[in-house]
């Protein structure tokens, strides 16, 4: 299956969405994005971290060290209140955009 590069700016939305289900560490987030997109969306896993750090700096997510499922120390991220708001805003923005692009494609 062909791999699609991530659209600029959509990584934030993906991470927020994934974290919407509960706290998760970086590796799990990367895995999850891949699984959920049926392996279509791949991220160079390292590029996840600048996004995570930026969002933490903006106060959308929080982090805490904890134990992973196979007993490894890992940093867990979770949404904050303003992160939830951001998720809603970005998700609805994305839907609007998809709708608009769809309209353009159909009418052309």
């Amino acid at each position, binding site marked *: 299956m062909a791999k699609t590069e991530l659209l600029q700016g959509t990584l934030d939305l993906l991470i927020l969405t994934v974290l919407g289900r509960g706290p998760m*560490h*970086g*590796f799990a987030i*990367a895995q999850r994005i891949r699984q959920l997109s049926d392996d279509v969306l791949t991220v*160079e*896993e*390292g*590029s996840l*971290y*600048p996004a995570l*750090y*930026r969002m933490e*700096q*903006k*106060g959308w997510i929080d982090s805490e*060290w904890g134990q*992973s499922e*196979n007993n*490894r*120390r*890992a*940093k867990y991220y979770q949404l904050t209140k*303003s992160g939830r708001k951001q998720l809603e805003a970005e998700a609805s923005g994305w839907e609007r955009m998809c709708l608009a692009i769809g309209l353009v494609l159909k009418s052309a």
Partner: protein
Amino acid sequence: MNPVWRMRAWFRALFAKRKLDAEMHEEMRSHIEMRTQENLANGMSPDEARCAALRRFGHVDGIKEICRDQRGVRWLGDLIQDARFGVRMLAKSPSFTAVAVGSLALGIGAGTAIFALVHAVLLRSLPVPNPQELLVLKWSGTKPQLGNFMGSQAADAAGHVTADSVSYPVFHGLREQCAAQADVFAFTELQELRITARARHEPFATAGLMVSDNLFSGLGVHPLLGRLLGPEDEAGGAEPAIVLTYECWQREFDLDPAGLGQSVTLNGNPYTIVGVLPRDFPGVVAGDRTEFYVPMSAQPQLLSSWSLTAPDRWFVKLMARKKPGVSDAQVESALNVAFARETETIMKEAKVLVSSGRNGFSYQRNTYRKPLLLLLGIVGVVILVACANLAGLLLARGAVREHEFAVRAAIGAGRWRLIRQSLTESLLIALFGGALGILVAVWGKAVVARLLAGSLDNFRFDTSLDLAVLGFTLGTALLTALLSGLLAALRAGRSDALAGLKERTALGAPRLRVGKALVVAQVALSVLLLAGAGLYVRTLVNLVRVNPGFATDNLLLFRVSPRTAGYRGSKSAGFYDNAQQSLAAIPGVKSVTLMQNPLLAGSMSGGSFFTLPNHSSESEPNAYKHTVSETFFATMSIPVLLGRELRASDTESSPKVVVVNQAFAHKYFPETNPLGQVLKVKGNDADWQIVGVCQDTKYTGVKDEIPPTVYFSYRQDAIGFACFAVRTALPPQAIVPSVRKAVAAVNPLVPLAGITTQKAMRDQSIAQERMFASLCGALACLAVLLSCIGLYGLMAYNVARRTNEIGIRMALGATRRNVAWPILREAVALGGVGAGIGIPTALALTRFIKSQLYGVAPTDPVTIASAAALLVTVAVIAAWIPARRAARVDPMVALRCE
């Protein structure tokens, strides 16, 4: 985002950097481990699993760097890094740092000190709400018939008069008619009052203001204690009230609130203290000596001849507060209409002149404006010299550190990053300089104020270094940093990693053109400053050498005002007689005299007060008038050249006589014998006969022309206050206590004021010239020194850079003279070009100080040429050391360096 959160994040990023980095490392390592585990589980070999995991992850260090940037404090981190590095670099070359920081500290310090005074005198608003609504009202009109006038007025030849005071009825009219546009309020000055407070205090002479009932409400001042004056104090039968300034309350009542309600006497009349003004209230008339305020209802007691109802007594000054929403033009036109109506019978073209009253009413502001702004300009030039000097030093440093910058560029520092690093260093220098400058200013502003006003006691403005002044300092420091650092910074930004890292060749690119231009600029500005300083110094020397026409040493002066103790009219003569006798009896006193105005004190009487019946001339005769006692000429050592002195026998009942000076005799009786001639004093029927001609003396000041002067005897021309002069055998200050006792023995109710010596008075009269000579001289020396350092730096760098070349030339047979001479020649050339620019600049600019010079023309060729010659000489001396160093280059050593 929550700012507290952000601050915490920044704080952590700055101070817990290591911990954050460790956590980041741990997190990424754990990620890669997990991926490796998964790969292993999928059946890869351990090596393969790890490689694949790393590939999947990406460039770890690059990602870490991007993550660090996300912390949002990179600029701050860089700044701190730059600053640390800058401090280290500055500490490495202490002599460079000392010169740079020291010169800026002196320049910025002097600038701050003078700006503090400019701010205090010219800029600071009264501490009241909406000071921009306050207005000062003056007026102009043609040929006004005023009657008696107290205040300042100026008239031109056409009879067009501009003046400040109005009569109380005019004030009242303006206040009533313009009530809709503005609240007009009035005050008048009360001088030479004797105030007695508590029993343990001696009476002291002081000055105050008599104010209209709406003055304090109009200004918007609130009392510190008690209440201020209002309409209730003007009502008939109101208890006489007085409001004290904080200063007066502090001195006389030691800040005791119980002072409120106490009674003080003013010229013998009781007044109850009802309030104290706040400490920061500088008064309606900024810089004056006002210590108390009384209502207008005090006029009959304190200013008896200036009636509030008389239309021909012009003595109150006006200010106003605009009503909100009213424009300046509306206020002005309303005032004009009202003023024209009030004065239609006594003047034409009556007009009210409205100006800003934001910082109150002041006479001194005009006195100090020009000198202060000039000083600020002079200091500005010095700061420019310091900037040019620093720019040159930084450029030379930059050239030496080319290699370092190239290395930084090579390992990835961007252009902007290099510029910033370089600017940070000049910023550090400027900030250190500014901080030290504040210390210089704390000390310097008192020095400048004392030099400016003659003594600190005369300079009654609040010169504290407030935020505005410190803002000026910071602004100057930043500007200096930018001006001096920009060239070097731009050059650093151009650092070429490749070229810079190559072996530096002996004949490297000549980068001295800018450096030379900077040195030329410094020399030119220094010539300008030095020429100005030279003119001021010559002015001072001329003034010190002026013979005032009388002996100024061992002469004690003080003022008394018997009028305040109830002596009226000719009764004061009795007091003066007794006081003179009592003073003459003090051991060590050679002689005693009294005069209406102290000499060389800037005060005078006279004008066109008389006519000459036997003299035909188109213009009205005009002269200064001085009322003195018969011992005046002997005590002051003024020879009487013709006729006789005034005598004790010239009394009220004997024929009226006067003595005139030579200038008077020359002006009005050039051909005839002045003795026996008669003059008529306006408003007096008597003939005043000239009985003597005395030698010319200076009157108002050393700088002023000798005016035609007429001397009257106090026995025939009563004076309500006088200045006593006591000629002593000892230093005059030593007998002050006995003088006080002697006057108190005559009448304890007459206080002594303004105790000083004639010498101090003389010094005071040339205080401003002394200040300009010393300050401008010191600043010019600083500028010359800086130019010297700049030139030396350039030449030394030049020689160091060309050591190889010089070595080769000497190996090929050049003599020491051959190598040293071009260096000296270049210094002379730079000095010459600088002087060539400086001389015309000086010629063009010195005319702005023409009015401050005495006995020397602003374009005085000797002064300006010497300034230029001095600088060229100094330039040669500065280049001498590098030239000698060049001459001593050992060709073998120089070539071996290669």
